[in-house]
């Protein structure tokens, strides 16, 4: 049996070597092209990012986007879950919501952004877009989870005289949780990507999207890459935080 410390080192190594090779390839390509406008080298990007990271506007932009996209995401999680419960309870509500959910999940994000821009201010667009992208994913998955709930367990709960809350907590929550978790994980990344896409099109003042757009307009490729890298890093951190909270919730439920 391999000791766990060796196993961890092996996992780390397996993650690291492909990344290092890609970075090396990127660096070589940048050196061959020898044009910072066409392709900034990884070294230049990291240098640019470290310059940005010590400025206040950089953090203000991150804050601006993170807060709004998170609000959109969490609202969609809450409302999507609520609507799926209502749809389970009432066939009329389910039939009524079906075309709406189908429409918003099939309309391209870009069309949505331009449409919604007609109705809301550019500074709040990312809230609405991340909300609309996440809503059908949460709704569909949670509803499916509720419908897949094992009827044998519902009967068991009836015989053992479970209260309504006990039934929801132990039967429905525990059965729906895997569906909810997978929808949560998928939509977290999508909310972030669509939110930033909305910012790039609507260019709200002081957002990450605005900085990306400015970098493109002024052909500051290193800046563009640095902002992109910061988006990736923030997305990864947010994902870790939310998944940690989700696992806490799961553990609480298992007790």
């Amino acid at each position, binding site marked *: 049996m391999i000791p766990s410390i060796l196993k961890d080192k092996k996992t780390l190594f397996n993650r690291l070597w492909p990344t290092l090779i890609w970075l090396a390839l990127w660096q070589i390509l940048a050196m061959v092209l020898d044009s910072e406008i066409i392709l900034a080298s990884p070294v230049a990007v990291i240098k640019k990012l470290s310059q940005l990271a010590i400025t206040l506007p950089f953090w203000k932009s991150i804050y601006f986007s993170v807060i709004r996209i998170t609000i959109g995401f969490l609202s969609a999680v809450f409302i999507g879950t609520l609507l799926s419960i209502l749809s389970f309870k009432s066939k009329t509500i389910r039939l009524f919501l079906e075309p709406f959910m189908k429409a918003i999940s099939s309309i391209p994000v870009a069309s949505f952004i331009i449409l919604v821009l007609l109705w809301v201010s550019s500074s709040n667009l990312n809230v609405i877009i991340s909300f609309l992208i996440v809503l059908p994913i949460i709704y569909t998955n949670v509803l499916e989870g509720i419908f897949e709930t094992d009827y044998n367990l519902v009967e*068991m709960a009836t*015989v*053992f005289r479970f209260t309504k809350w006990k039934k929801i907590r*132990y039967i429905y929550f*525990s*059965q729906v949780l895997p569906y909810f978790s997978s929808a949560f994980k998928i939509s977290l990344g999508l909310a972030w990507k669509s939110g930033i896409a909305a910012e790039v099109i609507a260019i709200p003042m002081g957002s990450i999207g605005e900085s990306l757009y400015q970098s493109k307009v002024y052909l500051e490729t290193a800046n563009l890459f640095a902002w992109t890298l910061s988006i990736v890093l923030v997305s990864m951190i947010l994902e870790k935080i939310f998944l940690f909270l989700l696992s806490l919730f799961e553990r609480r439920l298992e007790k």
Partner: protein
Amino acid sequence: MMKEDKSKIKDIIIDNISKSFQEKKVISNLSGNIVGGATTCLFGPSGSGKTTLIRILLNLDTVDEGKILNIDKLKKSVVFQEDRLCENLTSLTNVKMAMAKDVDPFLANQLLIELGLEENINQKVAELSGGMKRRVAIARALASEYDLLILDEPFKGLDNEIREKTIKIVKRQTLGKTVVLVTHDLKEAELLETNSYIYF
């Protein structure tokens, strides 16, 4: 456990009941007594309607004809033929969830330990073997507050040694209670000191 005064516990009277599913008669004019404060065994081949009668006793189905007396107000507990456990929850949670609020929560631990699951108390049910799951289902049924306990092939899947130990625990815990046992093994019925039989 204190022995209850049997004279106070009424028999459950099954009076000429019939039940059909899509024109197929599953129970036909069945009558019998489930003796109050004692164990009654439902005995018969597979598909003879035992599980249907259990579902009717548990209020999960209704009779088409006939009636069952003295059952409406009874609190019921059950070991289903399938375990019907919440797989992603621990053994302890599965037992505790069936307990009334005013019951000492330690009873759940105590029953699981007695049933030989002391090392599996905080393990998810999904990770347990079939025999272990069966014992969790038995612990849940015993921990719940009940006037009528229904055991549908409760010892299925347990190896001999564990089965005998489990039967002893069930016997001790259900002393003086009304129990309905479904089994294909008459030895199990004898070990639980069955007082009466309903044949299908």
